[in-house]
């Protein structure tokens, strides 16, 4: 046997897994949502101009991903490493000639592709059922990519330590968004410890798919934090043993 040591040899299996879950759900939800919007737009919007329809569809895309981006990333990435470790599956995977950091990096990148395909599929559905086009803008795709980088890397990093990675990231995102929203609205004046925590945690509050593409310091903050967390996760996978006990 001439072994196939291609570093990409497991990619087809990852793609199959992601297509089945959560890909099939994403597809179903995207088409279903687009179809529902068609019904609603016919009932309430009446005859509108093409420009107004395009603006409405763009707004629908932005609002939809504002609501679901975090959940979509958690579904695509949740438990990615932690479950393998917790259940002991890693012992079968990593007795084979493949490095854990590379295995999970491929999984991360394919999940990113899946999440980035969501607005495309949803947009295709919108263009079929409405007159407003796909509603896809470069800003929307850019923010979704940054959102995946930030949320996905946070899940990767948390997943090195626990299979409840999704819960940790959900709590962090909830805290960050609440602090940012209430501060902006002037509802609270965060105490110093909360401000320090808010600045130190991943800047998930900067991910807003309804707004323009991030730029300047905000872009650097989000991209830098995301890349740093991803690198930290990969370094931990390279240097930190996967087991925690004789049988664990």
């Amino acid at each position: 046997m001439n072994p196939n040591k291609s570093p990409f040899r497991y990619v087809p299996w990852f793609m199959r897994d992601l297509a089945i879950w959560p890909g099939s759900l994403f597809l179903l939800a995207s088409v279903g949502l687009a179809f529902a919007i068609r019904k609603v737009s016919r009932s309430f919007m009446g005859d509108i101009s093409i420009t107004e329809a395009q603006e409405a569809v763009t707004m629908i895309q932005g609002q939809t991903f504002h609501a679901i981006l975090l959940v979509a990333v958690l579904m695509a990435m949740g438990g990615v490493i932690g479950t393998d470790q917790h259940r002991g599956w890693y012992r079968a995977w990593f007795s084979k000639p493949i490095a854990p950091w590379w295995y999970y990096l491929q999984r991360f990148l394919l999940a990113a592709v899946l999440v980035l395909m969501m607005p495309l599929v949803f947009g295709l559905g919108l263009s079929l059922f409405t007159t407003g086009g796909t509603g896809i803008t470069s800003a929307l795709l850019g923010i979704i990519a940054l959102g995946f980088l930030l949320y996905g890397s946070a899940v990767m990093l948390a997943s090195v330590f626990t299979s409840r990675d999704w819960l940790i990231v959900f709590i962090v995102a909830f805290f960050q968004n609440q602090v940012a929203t209430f501060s902006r609205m002037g509802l609270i004046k965060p105490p110093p410890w909360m401000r320090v925590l808010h600045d130190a945690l991943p800047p998930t509050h900067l991910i807003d798919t309804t707004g323009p593409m991030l730029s300047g310091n905000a872009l650097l903050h989000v991209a830098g934090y995301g890349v740093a967390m991803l690198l930290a996760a990969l370094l931990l996978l390279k240097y930190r043993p996967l087991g925690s006990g004789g049988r664990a």
Partner: protein
Amino acid sequence: MIQFDQVGKTYTALVTRKRVDALSDFSLEMRRGEVVGIAGPNGAGKSTLISLLMGFLQPTSGSVRIDGKPPRAYVESSGVSYLTELVNLPPRWKVPTALSRLATLAGVPASERDGKVRETMARLGLEEHAAKQVKQLSKGNLQRLGLAQALLGDFDIVVLDEPTHGLDPLWTQRFRDVVAELRRPDRVIVIASHNLDELERLADRVAILNRGRLQRVVEHGGAVTESAARAWRVAFEGTPDFGGAFAGATAVEGRPGVWRVTATGAELSAALARLLTDGAVLTECAPEESRLETAFRTAVQS
């Protein structure tokens, strides 16, 4: 090929900081071409030793090297045929799918994968379970699936942790044949097991662990010297007076003609020779426990 050099592993509880020495000062070299057994009671450190060998744990002290490399570096570049003590695979995977995925990771080329999976399933009697999910397999069948996935790659190191756990006697026997087939001059096979009979049959050397320490290494056919007295069971046709021929022999209660005696091989041979010359018919003569069992008992009790 595999070198353990004064390896120690201590587990420290996260909260209480209580420390447990799972392995202490363990040194052993495992060479190509040999089958090395690891024996020891529960908690002796066998699984920790295997995890260190696979690079899933790092030693607290000392070093483990495989062909001069740290274990993780070796495994990531070359791979190891590894059967875990507790076979864990995603429960919803079907048997052929699980094997096909793991064959992919093992580096089996796509063109040969299906054939390799079919061949391995046939070898381990898994064909009739092809439609089942992993979660639907019995303990024994799951163990066979674990062994099957370990055999997919063609690696120079084979590590089997409690390989016959859950197997019926028929498959335990077949497992021995599989190990015999796996032997080759450039390969080292490591078997950790509670089953001393199995290790005695398969291993060239057996390292006996107790409380995290290497107690002794029993070489195949050696180590426990022939001059040491052992317990024997001896049986004759009829009821010759073995007790008269050998002081200290005691008749086994309720079994006429069966005797138990503690003697060296030389002493027993001499006594038997006298009786056989006098016309006694010997029907059984076997040690009450194997050499390895004797060595194990001595090592664990010391």
